[in-house]
């Protein structure tokens, strides 16, 4: 089962874990990405996430399908938040369940690493004294 969502609402880790829970699965790996309070020694005030939603949903689905192909995991939940996020807010939740833990860990790691490379979502960091689109410039 693949469950993908992009939303402006607060993400719910317990709901993601519940969705990944499966009698056939002995392991659930969960990654939670949160907004941290500083970057390159600058104090972060908030992040603003923007998304090309139709393409982002497609790219996330491709990643989930590839993870199932590579590790035969049973369930993948990917929820990503957009809009204005503050320190400590959850930006992304990935939950993967499979019969055994190795596949769940490996697939979870693959999904977040690939999401950061291919899914058209952007964050602008607002810090004390300025703002910057992350990764935009060399």
């Amino acid at each position, binding site marked *: 089962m693949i469950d993908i969502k992009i939303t402006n609402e607060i993400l719910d880790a317990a709901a993601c874990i519940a969705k990944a829970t499966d009698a056939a699965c002995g392991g659930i790996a969960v990654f939670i990405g949160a907004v941290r309070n500083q970057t390159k020694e600058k104090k972060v005030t908030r992040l603003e996430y923007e998304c*090309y939603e139709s393409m982002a949903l497609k790219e996330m689905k491709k990643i989930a399908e590839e993870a199932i192909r590579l590790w035969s995991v049973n369930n993948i939940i990917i929820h990503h938040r957009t809009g204005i996020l503050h320190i400590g807010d959850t930006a*992304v939740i990935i939950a993967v369940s499979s019969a055994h833990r190795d596949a769940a860990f490996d697939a979870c790691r693959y999904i977040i690493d690939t999401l950061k490379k291919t899914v*058209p*979502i952007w964050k602008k960091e607002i810090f004390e004294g300025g703002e910057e*689109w992350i990764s*935009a410039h060399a």
Partner: protein
Amino acid sequence: MTINILAFGIVKEIAGSSRKVLELENGTTVARLKNILETAYPKMKQLKSYMVAVNDEYAEDDLIVSPNDEVAIIPPVSGG
């Protein structure tokens, strides 16, 4: 032909809008479109990289753009 172009992230700020309408010759490739954009918006050349997506898929430079395509400029992504 008239093409609608979507701009996101820093490209939206460079172009001054999230949606641009461009008049292109028939047969325009993605590579040619990138040239046109970089001429119109020189700050595009300062980006680490960027991609063009056509109809929700990353496009190669030799793809020819068609009038009803949804074309989007994708600066370096930073989700997660």
